[in-house]
């Protein structure tokens, strides 16, 4: 699927496509396995700023490497995960977050799935209800004038 993206890159920019990803290099890995685990987790949520939709964990761009090292540096300095993320957002802005924060600009983004679910469920359940009633009453074709006349005759006779 990335194929099509690369096609676009090739076609539109005539630039060479994303080179094969060889992201985290052996030299970057922290000796403390638990801390490295934390670094990987944070890296997966940070965008490589010069790539299209790649996390710094997946990208081999030099800038992504710088960011990976920065994350590890801050972790080594003893900062919490949240503090590391705050530091990076302060430097690069919300754009760096692959999971956008909830704020006035993204409220719609975060509420939309739930809103869609409720609206669709309501609409479809209403539609099936309507089909229930229509099948029993509303769907019946009204009598033609001849039929009505006949009905009246029958009723009058009885």
């Amino acid at each position, binding site marked *: 699927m990335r194929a099509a993206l690369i096609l676009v890159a090739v076609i539109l920019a005539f630039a060479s496509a994303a080179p094969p*990803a060889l992201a985290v290099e052996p030299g970057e890995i922290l000796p403390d396995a638990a801390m490295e685990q934390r670094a990987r987790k944070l890296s997966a949520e940070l965008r490589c700023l010069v790539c299209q939709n790649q996390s710094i964990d997946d990208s081999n761009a030099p800038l992504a490497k710088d960011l990976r090292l920065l994350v590890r540096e801050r972790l080594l300095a003893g900062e919490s995960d949240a503090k590391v993320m705050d530091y990076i957002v302060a430097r690069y802005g919300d754009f760096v977050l692959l999971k956008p924060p909830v704020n006035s600009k993204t409220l719609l983004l975060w509420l939309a799935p739930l809103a869609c679910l409720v609206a669709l469920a309501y609409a479809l359940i209403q539609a099936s209800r309507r089909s229930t009633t229509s099948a029993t009453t509303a769907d019946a074709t009204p009598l033609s004038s001849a039929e009505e006349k006949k009905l009246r005759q029958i009723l009058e006779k009885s």
Partner: protein
Amino acid sequence: MITEFGHFALILALVVAVFQMVVPAYGAHIRDDRLMAAGNTAAVLQFGLIAIAFASLTRAYIVSDFSVLNVATNSHSTKPLIYKISGVWGNHEGSMLLWVLILALFGAAVAAYGTNLPTTLKARVLAVQASIGVAFSSFIILTSNPFLRLLPAPADGRGLNPILQDPALAFHPPFLYMGYVGFSMAFSFAIAALMEGRVNAAWARWVRPWTLAAWMCLTIGIAMGSWWAYYELGWGGWWFWDPVENASFMPWLAGTALLHSAVVMEKRDSLKVWTILLAILTFSLSLMGTFLVRSGVLSSVHAFAVDPERGVFVLAIMIFFTGGGLALFAMRARELRQGGAFAPVSREGGLVLNNILLSTACATVLIGTLYPLALEAATGAKISVGAPYFNLTFLPLMAPLLIALPFGPFLAWKRGDLTAASQLLKVAAIIALAVLLIAFAYGQKGVWIAPFGLAIGAFVMAGSLSELAARTKLGKVSSEETIRRFVNQPRSIFGTTLAHFGVGLMTIGVVATSAYQAEKILVMKPGESVEIGGYALKFNGITPSRGANYVEQIGSFDVTLRGTSVTSLSPSKRLYDSPPQPTTEAGIHASWAGDLYTVLGDSQPDGGYSVRLYFHPFVRFIWLGAVLMFIGGAVSLSDRRLRVGAPNLARRKPAAAPAE
């Protein structure tokens, strides 16, 4: 000369498409059989002309005619033949030509095989189909002409990007387009039905095979792309929630919903309005996918603004067909009469739930994909919406869908019995529970949610088999009787079972490889060994080599499992000649338990090489699942009842109300 011939054929095809758009529709309006029948000839002729255009462009690629600009830009004389051919659609102009070729193919197929369609409906379907053809043929001729000449011709072409020179990728676009464009049939039928002002169960029966065929192709097309990304991009990722992936995934989700709602419409005459709407939206999403990929709007809003010609054109096409379709829907939908009533717990109710969840999932992907673009256009603020957002919003919608899936086929039409269905799913539930416990016992700590995912996958697989078991009364009657019943099941039942089984298999693959993958990134010197995923790997070093159009360095690993030699893997790093570009080729050892995946990195100053080793458990189930969905679709399509077309109510056995 032949290229000019193709160029001319394309222009002629546009003229024929205009004729096909106007004449049959007018014929349907005034009820003139001769004018309506002209649509058939036009549809076949249009296909023939575009096929000539396509063939002549393909010829230019095969003989490396670099006086054609498109060939010079995208091909190279030393490329292997298969990639010369796939190079035809490996670029913008050629891929759009493939787009209209497939569009015309579907139109011609309706003309040829739609003999039992009511003549006015058929004429209108062909006219709508032609209108799409007019739009895209004009787009090609006016903005993206692949037949332009380049004089003087260069000595050689620029070449196709080497990572695209791959067998899976060669056939990825054609399948994807057959899916995208195949949904145009559902669209054309929907618009024609709205023009007619009436729609019935027979309509759904006509539309379903086309939708199913398109859905199958899209399924396999997406799977091929994912498979390619997995082995080619070098770390075993198979889905990235990339906007371009999403562009193909949205029509798939909507198309899957459409397949299921069309069943309700066909069997019970219900959900008509919704099915028509879904048919319009599914193709609209295909158009949007084309717009997103072709306009460059994804790479940046600014790139779009710099060279807007093509983007604006496709945007106009998209707005015209989506807007026009929805406007017509808004005007005429009220005239469509609703049919069959049903209780909330029923086959229909289950399929409505399927539609609610799939459509919401589709809307979620749509919003996540477009929101950053819309926000930037509106406020200038830049945000990123990536995998973490989609995982957080999409997966909670899939979990209930998958849990509910096995119940659906056990519910009767109109009014189902949930308790009885649960009884029949007892064995499946026990299997799922066993999987849950085993996963908790043996899985890594920390990923508490993964065992539930595996259990759900197992439940779907066992549940789909339970349906077949219940239908054949397995264990309740003699084995001869069970075999007799098995043989007598309609093919669509097997199709459903296979496809649903594939969904379960894919679920297991996705969960297992996401949660339990093992990874080692290290520097290895020749002679050193390392263990991963139960395998022991000994690194033997690097040998340089020369391929057809690249040089490469091949690493060598001896792989042993519990002391016995399994295989040797040779991941490599390549440098292509034209364009000069490095790629990595992973060395993969596949087994049912999972893939051992090795990637060669750079040489280190100390004489070692950086290597990446992964073990991806059950990862092949992802694509195997997709293949089963494809086969399931094909088996369903071969069902006589689908092929016959018009329903024969008198002959339909009321007792057999199978699910599809």
